[in-house]
């Protein structure tokens, strides 16, 4: 068991190293001068600045040396300087914007997962029923919908107000600007701003969770031991919750954590739509400003988050499944 865990951790670490290497080589493989690339499109683009940047970035040194320097920098969380705020360290810019995203993604993932699992359980158990067909249809429809488009529509309806829809929510942001609210009032204000993006993200992804759970449940439902439980006289309710669900939950758990990557993708666009000042909006600003150091830093962060989520999923699974725990 311990070997399994160590193996998984080593794998995760290796993947992170790949990401770092990828980031490094991304600039170097593009034809042309990386420094020029960095300054392209900015006002600072002139031969002197480019040369200065080349020296700063150590681009005149040999490739292996550059790589080592890069790795060392990464390890010390030195991702270079963002083009924002005139050269603020990337790491600072990122950490300033982390919390809103954690709040948004954290709460919506939990809500999404819980709702999705329950819907999936009932849909799978009552396969073919109106509820099942309805929830499948709903899932399919939401899956086909770009989350940001859904977000825009929600924004238009509930914040802008159109047709029969009331404009009851703020049009964006994390909290009311120019306010000195503290304590409970502040919390309410934050929550008020959170409602729309939270709802959009939750609805956008609960379908995925419900589908995974539903399929897992249907697989398990057909196993022989379910027949054994019924023959023993166990009531249907308990057959579902004591026998089927525990077995169906295991693979679902892993798959759910693995979906985190998609949630981040959604967060990027949804934050942008709702002007929600988190990492997502930051990413879009970085795109607009060609802020490559920031983009790379964000990419690394997102990747590491997903890798860690995968690792946690693996570890959790191995603890919960007696077959793996023993082996």
């Amino acid at each position, binding site marked *: 068991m311990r070997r399994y865990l160590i193996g998984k951790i080593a794998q995760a670490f290796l*993947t992170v190293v*790949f*990401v770092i290497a990828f*980031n490094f080589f*991304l*600039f170097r493989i*593009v034809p042309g001068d990386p420094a020029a*690339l960095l300054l392209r499109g900015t006002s600072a683009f002139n031969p002197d600045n480019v040369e200065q940047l080349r020296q700063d970035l150590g681009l005149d040194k040999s490739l292996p040396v550059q790589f080592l320097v890069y790795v060392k920098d990464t390890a010390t969380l030195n991702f270079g300087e963002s083009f924002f705020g005139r050269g603020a360290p990337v790491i600072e810019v990122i950490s300033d914007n982390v919390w809103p995203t954690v709040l948004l993604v954290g709460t919506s993932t939990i809500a999404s997962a819980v709702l999705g699992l329950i819907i999936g359980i009932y849909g799978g158990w009552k396969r073919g029923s109106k509820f099942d067909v309805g929830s499948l249809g709903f899932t*399919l*429809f939401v*899956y*086909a*919908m*770009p989350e*940001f*488009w859904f977000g*825009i*529509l929600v*924004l*238009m309806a509930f*914040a*802008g*107000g*159109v*047709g029969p829809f009331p404009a009851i929510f703020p*049009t964006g942001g994390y909290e009311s600007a120019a306010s000195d609210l503290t304590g409970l009032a502040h919390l309410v204000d934050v929550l008020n701003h959170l409602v729309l993006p939270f709802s959009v993200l939750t609805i956008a992804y609960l379908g995925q969770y419900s589908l995974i759970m539903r399929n897992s449940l249907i697989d398990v439902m*057909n196993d022989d031991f379910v027949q054994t439980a019924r023959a023993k006289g166990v009531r249907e309710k308990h057959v579902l919750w004591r026998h089927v669900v525990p077995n169906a939950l295991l693979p679902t758990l892993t798959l759910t954590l693995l979906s*985190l*990557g*998609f949630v*981040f*993708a959604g967060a*990027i*666009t949804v934050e*942008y*739509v709702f002007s929600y000042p988190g990492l997502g909006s930051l*990413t*879009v600003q970085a*795109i*607009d400003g*060609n802020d*490559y150091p920031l*983009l*790379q830093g*964000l*990419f690394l962060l*997102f*990747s590491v988050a*997903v*890798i860690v989520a*995968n690792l946690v999923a693996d570890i959790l699974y191995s603890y919960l499944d007696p077959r793996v725990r023993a082996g």
Partner: protein
Amino acid sequence: MRPPEALGHVAEEKPSAVELEPPPPGVPKSPRAIVWARRRRSASRIWRMYRRNKMGMAGLFILAFFIVVAAAAPLIAGEEALKATCECNGAPFSPPSWEFPFGTDNFGRSVLALTVWGSRISLTVGLLATVISMVIGSTIGIVAGYYGRWPETILMRLTDWFLVIPFLPLAIVLASILGQSMSVIILVIGVTSWPSDARIVRAQVLSVKTRPYVERAQALGASPWHLITRHILPNVGPLILANTILLIAIAILSETTLAFLGLGDPLTISWGRVLEFAFNAGAAGSGQWWWLLPPGLAIVFVVLAFTMCGFALDEIVNPKLRRR
């Protein structure tokens, strides 16, 4: 009951040393012909089963509709309607009317024209990107599955890596560095979506590799190329097809998102770009639903169509999904 495959392959491997009488009319003349006749039969069987699948047929109809619309774009609205300075344009930001069924955008352009012409770009990008990912994925899957050991380990690690890395951040980084053009978008999506095909192909290769008729063929001296093209690809084909159709749906969604974020080709109009314009022009706050709904709904329906077709096909060809 012997499986038909065994029959076909036994015939293939028999050396034609003995002069056989000419076969009676109606019977295929050679081993190759037998194999192709069998493939045609199995294809028509799949089609017959597909026809019975309501979801699949519905998806197919929607798809056909959009393909027709995309092809007939010039007939529905002239290409000049896409220009901001066209005389055919109406008043900006106007809601739907007889003249402009979907209303107009900030330049007064007909949203209907934008949506119809946008279908071309979105469908093209989706298709091309998926073809790239299918080719890359299949190749990697075949090489990994067939050769095993070192190549397999390395390639599978690579596949796992691509699977773990979140798609949008990766695509954003690639697209912003490589520049904004349609080919970049196609490339970026294609290069990041191949892992699913690779996995499927490799799994199939592994299962086919150990079948008796493959071992027999190898014993008879069949080359890897022969095995791959004659044995592995036909087996893997239907599964890849189902997966690929699903990938097209994802590719279209990806293109839309990338375009919306500003990474799209500035010279083309795709659904994502229309939404980008609309959002940037404040359509949400101003309640200009006619500008926002049509491109979005078009995306939803096209993606739905591909997904339904893909699911339906998957149900038919994927042995694991056959209902008990």
